[in-house]
């Protein structure tokens, strides 16, 4: 099996001199196709920074990162955009929906950028919105949606391209326990279909659904274990 994610001795430093912060301090991590990984750790431990690098949204200070065997540092910004669109579905901590644009248009957007025709992408977007239970809100703009509904629109947008890799940064932060349960069921399904899921969370019951749990502290991985209950 090829590693979807291959992080080698990565350092991410913010600032210089005395003010320098090592958000990631020599992190190495390999995630194979079809894994379901939870990344845990206290606030400020570098989880979001790691996700941004895995998603090719940010560059590294030192070290190497291979996405699907490709050295990300060798790609230009335009190629990276296209790679992100085709391979990765992002669910951000702060939703990141396009403002003043309906939920439907938001979910259609990644399909449009892939050049998929209007009719097909409308159909797929409606299906994805249905999957997250937002069928009755498709024409609402982000400001007309609750936090939980915005999060679900963001999930629909991440899933609509059927990405091989799903990266989610605290996706359940804005959700009640019922919606959390629904979303985790969805992740299970996606993972069962053979796709890779990486979830950042600080909730134990969210992490409990993953097959592998990584713990971070001060920019380092301090624990990397398989979830015995799930593997069995």
């Amino acid at each position, binding site marked *: 099996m090829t590693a979807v994610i291959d992080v080698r001795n990565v350092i991410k430093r913010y600032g210089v001199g005395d003010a320098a912060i090592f958000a990631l301090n020599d992190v190495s991590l390999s995630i194979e196709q079809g894994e379901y990984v939870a990344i845990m750790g206290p606030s400020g431990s570098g989880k979001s920074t790691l996700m941004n690098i895995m998603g090719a949204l940010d560059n590294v200070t030192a070290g190497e990162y291979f996405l699907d065997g490709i050295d990300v540092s060798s790609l230009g910004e335009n190629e990276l955009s296209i790679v992100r669109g085709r391979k990765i579905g992002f669910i951000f901590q702060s939703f990141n929906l*396009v403002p003043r*644009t309906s939920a439907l248009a938001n979910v259609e*957007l990644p399909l*449009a950028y892939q*050049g998929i025709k209007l009719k097909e992408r409308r159909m797929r977007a409606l299906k994805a919105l249905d999957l997250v239970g937002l069928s009755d809100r498709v024409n609402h703009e982000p400001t007309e949606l609750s936090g939980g509904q915005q999060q679900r629109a963001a999930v629909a947008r991440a899933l609509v391209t059927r990405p091989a890799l799903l990266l989610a940064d605290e996706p359940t932060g804005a959700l009640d326990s019922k919606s959390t349960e629904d979303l985790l069921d969805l992740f299970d399904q996606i993972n069962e279909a053979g796709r890779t899921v990486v979830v950042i969370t600080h909730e134990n019951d969210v992490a409990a659904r993953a097959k592998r749990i990584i713990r971070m502290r001060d920019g380092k991985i301090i624990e990397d274990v398989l979830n015995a209950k799930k593997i069995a």
Partner: protein
Amino acid sequence: MNIFEIIRFAIRGLIANGLRSALTTLGILIGVGSVIVLTAVGNGSSKAISSSIEKLGTNTITVQRGGGGFGPSARNRQGATKPLTVADTIALVDPVMAPHIKQAAPVANASGVTCTNGAESSSPSTFSGTWPAYFEASNTPVHIGTYFTNDDVTEGRRVAVIGKTTATELFGTDSPISKVVQCGGIPFTVVGVADTKGSNGFQDGDSLLIAPVTAVQRTLTGYQSLSSIIVQAKSAAVQDLAQNEIQAILDPRHLVKSDATRDYRLLNQASLLQTTTDTNQVFTVLLAAVAAISLLVGGIGITNIMLVTVVERTREIGIRKAIGAPRSAILGQFLIEATILSLLGGVLGVIAGFVGSHFTIVGVKPVIVPSSVFLAFGVSVLIGLFFGGYPASRAASLRPIEALRHE
């Protein structure tokens, strides 16, 4: 992603940011429109002045009281000046002494006279007493009715030819012929209405009343001095000869010893044109400066809104890149948004400029300068494109995470 999709995205983006789009369009509209109208006003007034001078006729010489006109030293001459009189005018019409003068007419202007017809009133900007020769010499043909005659002058009859504006103000659409108007309390019978002359930029040429000089002098101006004498040379070619003859006749009558002590001056079309061209040039430069400033202000407005737009939407650009937008799609969207706004604002501005130039502004009928339309349109569209496109291209090459952090 094809171009039509990108255009749809751009239109959707413009609608989503409706108020900002409207303000940008308005900024461009005002910039373009004001440049067109301002230059049209400048051009219109200069056109009007030239044409009103041309209307005077090329072989007309005006004799005015006072020195100057042919040299700076004339202004410094000492001593009293003799008035221009009807007797001077009569002396000028002399086939022996002045073979190149076709005719001459005295002009006695009464200022600030208000004429009334019942409740209606009108104050002609030109209220002149003269001879019938004036109509040909000053190129003022009568359109309706008749001229007054030499007989009317001799008898001092209170008859008048009025201009179109004066006729309308006093009589509306009724015919003024044979009606009596009271001017400064004196009754004048209207015998004719002059052809339309138009405005010369400073004065309405149709706000006019012309009556026999005898009647005007007796009732309104008195006999001290004429305002001017209008002289018509036999042809434009002999104008210089006619001028020499005028001086040969008037110099002894006015006891003029040298050019420096001459107490009257001669104005012909060439000298009038020269003066007004100079005045006009100042005026045009002034208006061009105002236009340039309004274009600059408009341009800064456009730049400002475009920059704010891109800064505000940098985060959005980050989101779009994170979900797979190629650089071309983002750049295309923002460029097309900027193009649509600039073109829309530009076209509306041109329309506004054309509409605005239809109205008479401070007495001037604006005449559009074609190059101002292209310049104003081109500059605003280029500014719109550059300041819409350049920051967008910078934002499009940011790492998405940097754009996303942007608040």
